[in-house]
């Protein structure tokens, strides 16, 4: 872990005035000074920060390229102090593939929501995974389309009321939610397939460890990683931030169990143990 250093925005005088104080928490260098534009209580910001911390700690900021497609993360190029590509809806894994193949020394991540990754971009997702493309995919699953205002997502739960499932998701006509990790874990290509959550300090710490592991796998050439992050969308769920986290725990975690579904970098027994712990 790198030693925390002063934020570049502070002047020398300011630093000297607080010379006796110890910095214990500050903005990661990989985040810009821009304020997040996410809604209050949204967990995107938490995940962005975890990614930035992981990139700082692995000392890969200078060679990391991020890809952000359409969705609430579409303007995330303002938040990461990295070279960034904005991508069309669903195409982030293909764009990340192009960047990685052109410059294999770059560390490339795709940051995608559930509509993007599991609906319009399903083909790009599955094929990047089965190719074992050496990229890191961070998948935000909040069971709803956030940016367009709360429509049904491929991961919306049975019975979930959204703008486009106003009577609840009827599985007879609207089908069932996709469990992306379980699906991708059947493939030979992926190196790391893990589902985490950011609903509690404990889970946030585990999410951070998973994200960091995913980036380190890419650095070591182990291959494709996907970290699914169970997230909340208070605005479009129509709940307060705290109630949204309760709803997440009560409804999403039973359908989307946390755990490691595949880990090519771990000893077989260890991977099994991790999954069984969750």
């Amino acid at each position, binding site marked *: 872990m790198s030693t925390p250093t002063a934020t570049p925005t502070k002047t020398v005088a300011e630093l000297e005035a607080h010379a006796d104080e110890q910095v214990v928490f500050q903005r990661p260098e990989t985040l810009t000074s821009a304020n997040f534009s996410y809604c209050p209580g949204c967990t995107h910001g938490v995940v962005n920060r975890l990614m930035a911390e992981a990139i700082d700690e692995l000392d890969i900021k200078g060679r990391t390229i991020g890809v952000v497609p359409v969705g609430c993360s579409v303007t995330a190029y303002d938040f990461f*102090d990295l070279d960034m*590509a*904005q991508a069309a809806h669903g195409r982030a894994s293909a764009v990340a593939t192009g*960047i990685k193949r052109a410059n294999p020394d770059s560390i490339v991540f795709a940051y995608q929501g559930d509509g993007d990754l599991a609906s319009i971009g399903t083909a790009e997702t599955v094929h990047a995974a089965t190719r074992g493309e050496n990229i890191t995919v961070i998948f935000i699953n909040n069971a709803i389309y956030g940016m367009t205002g709360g429509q049904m997502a491929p991961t919306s739960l049975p019975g979930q009321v959204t703008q486009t499932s106003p009577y609840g998701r009827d599985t007879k006509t609207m089908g069932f939610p996709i469990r992306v990790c379980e699906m991708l874990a059947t493939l030979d290509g992926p190196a790391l397939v893990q589902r985490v959550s950011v609903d509690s300090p404990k889970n946030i710490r585990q999410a951070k460890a998973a994200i960091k592991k995913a980036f380190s796998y890419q650095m070591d050439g182990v291959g494709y990683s996907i970290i699914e992050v169970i997230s909340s969308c208070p605005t479009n769920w129509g709940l307060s931030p705290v109630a949204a986290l309760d709803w997440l725990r009560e409804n999403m975690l039973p359908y989307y169990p946390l755990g490691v579904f595949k880990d090519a970098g771990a000893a077989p027994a260890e991977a099994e143990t991790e999954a069984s712990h969750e």
Partner: protein
Amino acid sequence: MPNEKVLMKGNEVLAEAALRSGCTCFFGYPITPQTELAAYMAKRMPKEGGAYLQAESEVAAINMVYGAAAAGARVMTSSSSPGISLKTEGISYLVGADLPAVIINVMRGGPGLGGIQPSQADYWQATRALGHGDGHLIVLAPATVQEMADMVATAFALGDTYRTPVMVLADGMLGQMMEPVTLPEPLDLASIEDKPWALTGTGAPGRTTRNIANSLDLVAGNLERRNDERFERYEQIKAKEQRAETYLIDDAEYVVVAFGACARIARSGVERARAVGIKAGLIRPITLWPFPTTTIEAALPGARAFLSVEMNKGQMVDDVRLAVNGRAPVEFYGRTGGVIPTPAEVATALADLQQTVTAAGTKEA
């Protein structure tokens, strides 16, 4: 061995010429009649140390192109008509993010699945509608396998200079045709200008700012400024990059306008018309966008009428009419669905045109 002629298929020449132009990434998807190009790349690219990938779809392929172009690579994809339709979303993003790439369309008949025989029915799409939003691609149309060999290098160079995707619009006839060709000398990669805007990482040498490849701008005024800047570049392209070939044009009264393989047929048609006393000539647009309006303009003083000959239902004729702007009659002759016009048909169309124009002139007199 330099300057040695080899016998090669058009599709393979496009691939070899790309490799010799510094193309290091190719992303494609099989479709007739261009598949030989991808197959050639699959064989050669790994040996050159570049990236070849058969994507899961045309949509994925063009987005891989977007990624590699953003990373600063010389990148190419190829397809045929229905596949190009799938690529248009990604092409629009390339335009919007000002990313250079070379896109090959070896046209087949349409609409829909159409057929696999040669066609020029994607002229409108190539020059008007390669994706949503305001924008153009430079569109180059080869007529011979040799021109295919030379044009790919031009396409990469133009793309880099103007930061725009470039389309090479061929057809199934050229793609499948074998002709003797002198391949271009491999480009010295050091001669390719640096791309300071490329996504190479903020830690790359000489970097002071971070780079973003992006077509999104939620502020109305900003987006308009970006569009204005792009269209200023288009004006420069129109002024500097129009290309056309002419044949027997100096005294031509009846001017055939035809592009690609069809222009070779039209050329024979012009010769046949000359043989029966019709003063015919040929303009072959090499850049379809920008359309060579200055060449049309130069032919106008002596021209009594224009005849656009195409393998479609009449698409480029729109651009001929815009260039002529009512100053002479503009007619069309074409065949579709894989039926190729013959020189005799072109000569007949010219004879008919002469008769019509003469009759109209007599009536007026």
